[in-house]
């Protein structure tokens, strides 16, 4: 049929043409979908019995920073957990070291040395046998300032290495180290032959269950099963693919659509909803807690008076922050220790329970404080929400606070340089280990030099006293930790808000996912079914 110029085409003809066009488009789509990308990602059915093989798709918010491999920041823990192993490993709920690359150990009665007997059947991914020389190399590398490892002060206190026997090492300390097992649990055993390529991300050689295959910066890190792993028949998985998805929502979408089996960066609210959704499992990282706190520059003229810091501590509604911001995945504290810590003490945790009247009474004794800046990193949404609640709480008692959102690089620089003008809000870690680790390793708590510019001989003595004990647990240790907690409560240079659990979310197809106290992924027993 030919149409005349300007003459309208019939409705039926239009619908027919449209139908043909739509059919053509859908047909092309169907043809293009001869192999479905979604089906390719989803795989087979569900079964709880261990199954060999398969590729685990693991979503991470941040790319690996190769130079940060010895710090427990960003994506480092996931990679370290797959490729490397330490000498001992703590269970989630206790500070009782379990054998890993070290089979047995003997701590000297005076606490100044330890003898470790090493496994003899362990090889690096390169095929080289693991010996005591590797332990010495790893500990010395960990102590090097350029790697910025958190337990550097403890590693530096190791003064002697006896490696005469390739399967035994004797470490001598400058003084008793109550947190020596924290160090042995933390330091990954490194390959000295490829250490230069480790810092650039070209080679990651360890003794762990998975071998590093390839890294595409900003995109993907690929690992494959270590066929010579010392645990027989493990790991179950053939391959692990870490995909960098830097947006929370995009990561949630990828998990929901079956593109990922596990996602590390889903917000607390979404995790809460996902937990109620069929086909997904969420869990708190028990034993790998973080603590959110308000830091104080005690040399600020107004904040130098401890009564103002106490008023702030009484004013903060910790329960509200835990329930609203962290959706109940945590609990309020006044001192940093989580419930599994030998230093945890319920009575000390109620010292600054919310009391608006007490806060107002303390403020009445002081001249009206000026507007105080509260700095936080704008990169993490929970910091902003927590800071807003703190601002509202302080306004209620008469302290005016100005929120200062800051980009992360600037925030870290101000933290390390002790440059915050008033208050700041962020997280810290390491309180789940032997308590002295926090006060000698985490810079904000460091008794000799910290971000608050807080100086106190009594605090230094308490921190050193706890660190130089022969053991990290026991009655003597508990007493030392109580003294340390009292110093923290009295000095109040860091006002703790609450313990929070990082959250994991996964499809129910994934089984056997585990982690260390530093949130390192342990996939030795993991399988997809």
């Amino acid at each position, binding site marked *: 049929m030919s149409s*005349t110029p*300007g*003459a*309208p*085409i019939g409705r039926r003809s239009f619908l027919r043409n449209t139908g043909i066009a739509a059919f053509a488009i859908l047909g092309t789509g169907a*043809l*293009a*979908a001869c192999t*479905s*990308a*979604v089906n*390719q990602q989803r795989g087979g059915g569900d079964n709880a019995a261990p199954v060999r093989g398969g590729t685990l798709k693991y979503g991470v918010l941040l*790319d*690996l*920073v190769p*130079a*940060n491999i010895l*710090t427990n*920041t960003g994506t480092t823990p996931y990679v370290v957990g797959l490729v490397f192993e330490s000498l001992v490993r703590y269970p989630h709920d206790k500070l009782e070291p379990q054998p890993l690359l070290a089979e047995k150990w003997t701590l000297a009665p005076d606490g100044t040395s330890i003898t470790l007997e090493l496994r003899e059947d362990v090889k690096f991914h390169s095929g080289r046998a693991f010996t005591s020389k590797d332990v010495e190399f790893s500990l010395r590398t960990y102590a*090097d300032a*350029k790697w*910025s490892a*958190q337990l550097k002060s403890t590693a530096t206190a190791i003064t002697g290495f006896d490696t005469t026997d390739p399967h035994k090492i004797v470490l001598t300390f400058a003084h008793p180290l109550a947190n020596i097992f924290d160090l042995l649990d933390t330091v990954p055993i490194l390959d000295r032959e490829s250490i230069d390529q480790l810092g*650039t991300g070209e080679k990651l050689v360890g003794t762990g269950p998975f071998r590093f295959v390839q890294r*595409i*910066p*900003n*995109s*993907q890190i690929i690992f494959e099963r270590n066929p010579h792993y010392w645990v027989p028949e493990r790991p179950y998985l053939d391959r692990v693919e870490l*995909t*960098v*998805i*830097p*947006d929370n*929502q*995009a990561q949630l*979408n*990828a998990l*929901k*659509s*079956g*593109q990922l089996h596990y996602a590390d960066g889903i917000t607390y609210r979404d995790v809460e909803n996902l937990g109620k959704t069929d086909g997904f499992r969420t869990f708190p990282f028990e034993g790998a807690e973080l603590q959110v706190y308000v830091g104080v520059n005690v040399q600020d003229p107004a904040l130098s008076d401890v009564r103002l810091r106490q008023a702030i501590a009484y004013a903060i509604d910790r329960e509200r922050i835990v329930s609203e911001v962290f959706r109940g995945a945590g609990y309020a504290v006044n001192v940093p220790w989580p419930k599994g810590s030998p230093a945890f003490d319920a009575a000390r945790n109620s010292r600054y329970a919310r009391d608006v009247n007490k806060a107002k009474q303390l403020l009445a004794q002081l001249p009206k404080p000026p507007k105080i800046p509260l700095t936080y990193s704008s*990169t993490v949404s929970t910091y902003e929400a927590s800071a807003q609640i703190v601002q509202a709480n302080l306004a209620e008692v008469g302290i005016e606070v100005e929120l200062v959102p800051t980009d*992360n*690089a600037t*925030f*870290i*620089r101000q*933290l*390390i*340089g002790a440059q915050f003008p008033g208050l700041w809000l*962020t997280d*810290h*870690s*390491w309180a789940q280990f032997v308590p002295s680790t926090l006060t000698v*390793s985490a*810079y*904000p708590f*460091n008794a000799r*030099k910290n971000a608050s510019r807080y100086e106190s001989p009594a605090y230094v003595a308490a921190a050193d006293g706890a660190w130089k004990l022969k053991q990290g647990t026991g009655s003597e240790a508990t007493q030392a930790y109580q003294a340390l907690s009292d110093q923290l409560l009295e000095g109040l240079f860091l006002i703790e808000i609450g313990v929070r659990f990082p959250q994991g979310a996964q499809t129910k197809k994934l089984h056997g996912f585990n982690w260390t106290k530093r949130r390192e992924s342990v996939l030795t027993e993991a399988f997809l079914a």
Partner: protein
Amino acid sequence: MTAYLLRRVPSAVAVLFGASVLIFLLLRAVPGDPASTLAGPDATPESIAAIRHQLGLDRSVPAQYLSWLHGLLTGDLGRSYIIGGQIGDLIARGLTNTLVLAGSSLLLAVAVSLAVSVSAVLWEWRWLNAIVAAANTVAVAVPAFVTGVLLVLFFAIAVPILPAGGIPPDGFAAHPDITVQYLLLPSVCLALPVSAALTRFLTEALRTELGKPYVLTARSLGISHREIVTRGALRNALPTMLTVLGIQSGSLLGGAVLVEATFAWPGIGQLIEQGINRRDYPVVQALLLFSVAVFVAIQLTTDIVHAYLDPRIRIGGTA
């Protein structure tokens, strides 16, 4: 022409040199640095000093600049401080991903706008025009990150037929059918506002053409409306559409940055964002200088072509 080139090239080089100095100084004026970013929140000032030394940031600023310039002139863009890997590889990979995304979006936008505009002019129904106008308004008004989330919610979660994001795991060339599926959602998201703008422009251009005397002549000769539109009016309207397409291509690259985040597409936008956030000086320096170089090259090429076509310019007269 050689004399003209000798006059123009030094100024282009001077612009590049000036830009390199400015970029270098500007980055160092931004608070925060790679050493403290690398060191992390628990680091001591001693660790920072060790990292600064390792990265060469403890050298004087002119020394650091000269070392960077030497690298640029010898074709060595250097290694990224924080992201890791060679900067040349990072840029090449990011740029490829962005160009694939932007290219497929452009193709989609052109195809959709051609189909819709021609249909709207071929069948002059009021309801069809109303739908096209409404769809165009929505496509322009709704931001890409909203469209992106809606598309993902529908096509990847509610009716899971397409991937929620990412790039094809085995590369673009390995399985074209898989690549198309990975490209569909981000391309549609990016193409929507561009196709709406192109559709509006092309529809109006076609209608203007249809009011011209040659169309009346064609009609009087009994040529069908379809032939007049597709063979005559469309051919005449296309050159002006190309100008709009050029402008829209620029916004397409800008929009790609947002779409890359929504669809976890590791393109140049993600690379810039990471570089700036982490103060990865060498990566950001290289990317900024690369952008300046592209502009300088386009400007220089335009001037040279102009001069070639118009002798008054190359002999220094007034055009």
